[in-house]
């Protein structure tokens, strides 16, 4: 494998950045690892770094990513990526795209696996990746992670909408927080058209629920007003459920063994997708409704 970030475009010397840059949190060396190349990318040039899929970062309020490479004399590499967002929720959202992994006590939520440490703390989502996992690289990754985490003095709770989701039946580590269609479709495709009216003004959470031997998906979306969720509800019931005049809750069969449901209440739209039976679909829909109602 070539340089982890050598092809990603614009390079700069870490020390050239202003004080208080997250790159300043990083040590010049750590054991056998010495600081190498560094770079900063923002919303304007994120594609130079994340070629081909920068849209996922732009779908959150991502501002900058600070990239620092470490290397040893023998050519082993570690890449540190510190993603800075405007809101803590969106940094959490970037981590929540995949919450699986071995939990570690770094950041507010930290996860490790196969040479990659990912953690979230306040407005930062951090990835530290070893080119090859060894006991030495893992120790260095953990130490770098701890130093970055210690440098971030503030913390924030996970977004409120995530906590609204009912806990009964929830599959552990399956909850993803996001705003826009591009993220939803990368997780669970509903439509190429934005029939749910997702935007930077909406908050959404998608989660898996154990329903008997199957897993159903539940989607909860919060809108800035009470009109938009109803409009989205009507679009969804019309386009996906092929139902009309459905009141405020609706369950239909979509596929041979699959039931989809939709409900709307206040600023919230909630959907259940791929439930094995009508009653399971309605049951989960009502549990979400109950949580939404009590959260107001």
């Amino acid at each position, binding site marked *: 494998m*070539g340089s982890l970030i050598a092809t990603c475009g614009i390079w700069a010397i870490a020390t050239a950045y202003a004080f208080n840059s997250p790159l300043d949190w990083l040590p010049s060396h750590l054991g056998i690892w010495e600081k190498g190349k560094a770079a900063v990318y923002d919303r304007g040039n994120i594609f130079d*770094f*994340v070629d081909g*899929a920068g849209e*996922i970062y732009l779908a959150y309020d991502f501002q900058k990513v600070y990239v620092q490479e470490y290397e040893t004399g023998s050519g082993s590499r570690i890449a540190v990526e510190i993603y800075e967002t405007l809101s803590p929720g969106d940094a959490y959202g970037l981590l929540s795209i995949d919450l699986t992994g071995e939990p570690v006590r770094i950041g507010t939520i930290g996860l490790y696996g*196969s040479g990659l440490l990912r953690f979230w703390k306040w407005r930062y989502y951090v990835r530290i990746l070893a080119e090859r996992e060894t006991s030495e690289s893992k120790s260095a990754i953990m130490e770098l992670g701890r130093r970055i985490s210690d440098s971030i003095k503030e913390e924030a709770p996970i977004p409120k909408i995530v906590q609204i989701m009912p806990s009964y039946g929830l599959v552990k580590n399956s909850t993803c927080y996001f705003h826009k269609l591009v993220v939803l479709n*990368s997780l669970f495709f509903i439509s*190429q*058209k934005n029939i749910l009216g997702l935007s930077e003004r909406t908050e959404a959470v998608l989660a898996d629920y154990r329903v008997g031997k199957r897993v159903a998906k539940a989607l909860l979306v919060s809108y800035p007003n009470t009109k938009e969720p109803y409009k989205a509800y009507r679009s969804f019931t019309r386009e996906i459920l092929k139902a009309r005049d459905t009141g405020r809750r609706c369950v239909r069969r*979509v596929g041979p063994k699959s039931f989809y449901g939709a409900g709307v209440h206040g600023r919230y739209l909630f959907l259940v997708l791929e439930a094995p039976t009508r009653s399971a679909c309605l049951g989960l829909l009502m549990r979400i409704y109950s949580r939404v109602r009590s959260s107001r």
Partner: protein
Amino acid sequence: MAKGDGRMRGITRRDLVFGAAYGTIAVLTGLREAGGSEPKQSQESMVVIIRDEKALNEKKEADIEVLRQMLDQAIIKISGEKKAENGWRKLFNQKDFVGIKYTHCGWMRVHTHLELVEAVKGRLKDIGIGEDSIVAKDQGLPFEKCTALINVPSIKAHPLTGIAVSLKNYINFNRGKESTYHHGGSANLGEIWKMPGVQGKTRMVIVDALTPYFGPGPQIDPRYYWDFRGIVVGKDPVAVDTVCLKMVQEKRNAFKGGSWPLSPPPISIEEADKKYGLGTSDPEKIIVIRFGWGVPKEEEGKPIKLKDLKGFA
């Protein structure tokens, strides 16, 4: 819906579950059960999968000599010749100016192994094509100048197109318009293959399946590298991508212990067949021949329809 108008109309999950279009993709990703598929029009295509445990060493570095042997075995099957050299000669001649388009994907870090690119170059030189008549690149390949192209992509699940293999590998031939081929626009990836300077030049697709990436994006997570140690070879890019789709989908399901459909649905594959006529995506018409590591002895070298093939993962 006029086929191929995905970007215009906007397909829905319901279309995939119930609709007439995208039947192959819907079945392969598990959104629809097999049966009641669309009328068959395309010809049969052969796809060869060669695996070798020694293709990667303990440090997961590729062994070029093993890759050469894997390539030879594949080319013999694809060409129908008894000797690999004759197979290469059947597909290329000494006057060709050959472009090898590989994948150098910085962000995902699921590159085509350069050892595989070197192995391909070596075999072209062996049949008398000069060093100065072979260009291997990701960005900036002078495809207009080439008389023949070899598509050498990696395999990865992709958060904006579902999957990225050979069809998507030409995305940067349409420079400056790459992002128009994401989301619904991925339906039109096949149009790149019809561009002047590209059309009709691809003689071979050689997929680096040494370590396919089957996990979520946008950035890679090493837990989702699949230690497959193989190459997937064919002349039909649509058939090759369809096979790779089935491989990755099976691996995702096995990893998760249940259905984990690629998302968004990789509609580019079926559009490349139905709209652009680049090959077949029909699992009934794709004949897979497998050799090597992990292949059951009774199935080794045996032509099997993709629709009947299970157990990649």
